[in-house]
């Protein structure tokens, strides 16, 4: 663990990313305590510019809603969507990838053709279609994002499992009479953990972006304040009130960047042999 942290901290970008990410997490946790009112509450006159009133540091949107409250509550939604949809896509992707890599042959063929079917459709377009069919709400959005993001997990895992499949410790496990399930679960999966963790951190970032894009297009959950929604609603007044779209945009940029930096840092820390020199 000490080694891990040491290697991680050598990547300065990753440390900065981690700090930003922690900040966003803290913000999302304390949001309901500092902004006790609903972020939809119309609390002041519309179009108050940022940094002019202490009570409304980031100003108000076209309907007099507190932008800072919207950002704080939006952080919860964005993180929630990012984490849960990544978790769901791991749950779909890992068994498919593991089975394909472990059994090979026709199982592999079948599962990989199935995976390619999903990969051949542009993921965002598919997400838009899915959300439109299932009516936009937070569950359908999470499921749609998961459905379009699991193929890379399956492919990554298949490769990892295939290379581990022929290792001696796996063969030893086979000889000792363990069932396939036990071998995959006990022997192989633990060894694929590090690339999955790295991939997952990137996927969270991608999921946040997809959710924001959906909300921007008006396909978000109408009852949930998310960053993408604020940008989408603010877009129409960008010439009168730049701040409405700017701050949530900045929040998305920083969060996604932070997640990517952390992902890179994890990569360095978890695969020391692959770590790039000279940092």
């Amino acid at each position, binding site marked *: 663990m000490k080694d891990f942290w040491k290697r991680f901290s050598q990547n300065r970008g990753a440390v900065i990313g981690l700090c930003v990410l922690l900040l966003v997490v803290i913000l999302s946790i304390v949001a309901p305590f500092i902004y006790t009112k*609903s972020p939809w*509450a*119309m609390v002041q006159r*519309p179009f108050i510019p940022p940094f002019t009133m202490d009570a409304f540091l980031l100003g108000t949107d*076209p*309907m007099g809603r507190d932008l800072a409250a919207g950002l704080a509550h939006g952080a919860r939604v964005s993180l929630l969507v990012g984490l849960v949809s990544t978790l769901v896509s791991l749950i779909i992707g890992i068994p498919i990838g593991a089975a394909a890599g472990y059994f090979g042959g026709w199982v592999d063929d079948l599962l990989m053709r199935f995976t390619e079917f999903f990969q051949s459709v542009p993921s965002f377009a598919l997400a838009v279609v899915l959300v439109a069919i299932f009516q936009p709400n937070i569950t359908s959005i999470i499921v749609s994002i998961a459905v379009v993001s699991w193929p890379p997990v399956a492919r990554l895992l298949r490769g990892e499992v295939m290379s581990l499949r022929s290792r001696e410790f796996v063969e030893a496990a086979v000889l000792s009479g363990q069932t396939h399930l036990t071998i995959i679960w006990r022997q192989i999966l633990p060894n694929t953990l590090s690339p999955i963790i790295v991939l997952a951190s990137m996927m969270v970032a991608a999921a946040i972006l997809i959710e924001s894009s959906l909300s921007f297009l008006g396909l978000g959950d*109408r009852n949930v304040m998310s960053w993408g929604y604020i940008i989408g609603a603010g877009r*129409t*007044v960008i010439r*009168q009130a730049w701040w409405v779209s700017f701050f949530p945009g900045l929040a998305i940029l920083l969060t996604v960047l932070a997640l990517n930096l952390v992902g890179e840092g994890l990569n360095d820390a978890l695969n020391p042999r692959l770590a790039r020199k000279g940092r």
Partner: protein
Amino acid sequence: MRRLLFASLAFSLTATAVLAQAVPGGKLNLIVQPEPPSVMIGITTNAPALLVGGNIYESLLRYDENLKPMPSLAKSWTISDDGLSYTFVLQDGVKWHDGKPLTSADVLFSVNDFLMKMQPRHRNLMTHVESVSAPDDKTVVFKLKEPFEAFIRGLSFYTMPILPKHIYEGTEYATNPANDKPIGTGPFKFDEWKRGSYIHLVKNPDYYLKGKPYLDELYYQVIPDGASRSVAFETGKIDVVPGGSVENFDIPRLRDLPNTCSTEKGWEYFAPLSWLWLNNRKPPMDNVKFRQAVMYALDREFAKDVLWNGYGKVATGPLSSKLPFYKNVAPTYAHDPAKAKALLKEIGYDGKPLKLLPLPYGETWQRWAEAVKQNLGDAGIPVEIEATDVAGWNQRTSNWDYDIAFTYLYQNGDPAIGVDRNYKTSQIAKGNPFNNVEGYSNPTLDTLFDQAAVAYPAAKRQELYDQAQKKLQEDVPVAWLLELGFPTIYNCKVQDLVTTASGLPESMRDAWIKK
């Protein structure tokens, strides 16, 4: 300061008086949005078709902003004392755009034949009519089955355009080639239609009013993208932006441009009124106290000022204040969340969340749904907004599959034409999103509305409608929101742009450009 104001006001009044001498010449660029399928308004009657076609075809009457009839193709008219016989005398020297003279035969053909086949709205009006006859070339007489005072307001270009008999008689109306090159009697003649680009009308030099129209040419530009429409006005490519053709959020910016004027007039005939359908069949909306609580919870002033840029008016009840027989009767409902809470407590409302179906007509309506959700939430009614598209909205409301739903409807000049359809028991029928969708049923009110429609003269109708308004405002079958205002934004050089209750479609004959 005040004196200065008066002085400057007086000066500007005299200044306009001096300048208000119409000068002929010039062309005008307007927006038509969206591009209509046709401008033959005997067949196609959506707003963009009317905007253009209203210059080509005319009807017997026009209406001023109080919906008082004014001469159009009829130069004079008399109504018999019993209210059963309407006699119209046509203008002299009216010619169709192909040179043939207009006679009473054209009117008979349009009223008895063409429009009966092509327009359901006209058929509805004609259910009150016994017969139409033409004693001579210049006179048309309508005999009614029963007094129907609203009839005098049903003769607009929108309900009863007069069409050329010599072109349409004996042909298939819907496919007659003249539909693509319309021949009317109006102040402007059809010249050219470049699909996807513009519709071009030119002055009718033989128009029966000498000296009119003043303008030489009208271009109705087709610009499909909302942002581009705003920019086209900003750059001066467009002189007139008809109400409703740019997004609400662009309006303050355009209105504040230099040398730009705006007017809310010209919507008196349609009188669009918005409200929330409250599904009276389902609890808790079946409880009148709950519905009253909804009215108290809504902050409609906020919606008007913030979402509609201050245009329009908070509705007091089922009639738009622009409609004849409107009266500001009690009870009315000001924004009062405390009262709403008290009412909810009284009925022991359980706080079960309700679903709100917004109108899928763009940003303004979406924001409005959010504001209503917030208003109701503050009063203790939790609401979830549902996502929908136009087809979904139509289907859900016409099949009564909703709790609370947004809508707005035209009131078309008279409560007997455009209002009672939303409240009478006989109008409860699935499959139509414009009738009694809320499912309100009250025999007393049915009788009131039925009597008011055929009462005569107008004073008698007024009495009955006063009672109907009071009854409805007590029962709150739907939650009335705003009389919507759709401002027309235009370059200040254009004068007399809106001179009738239907606005731009009819007023181009009076418009002129200040040099």
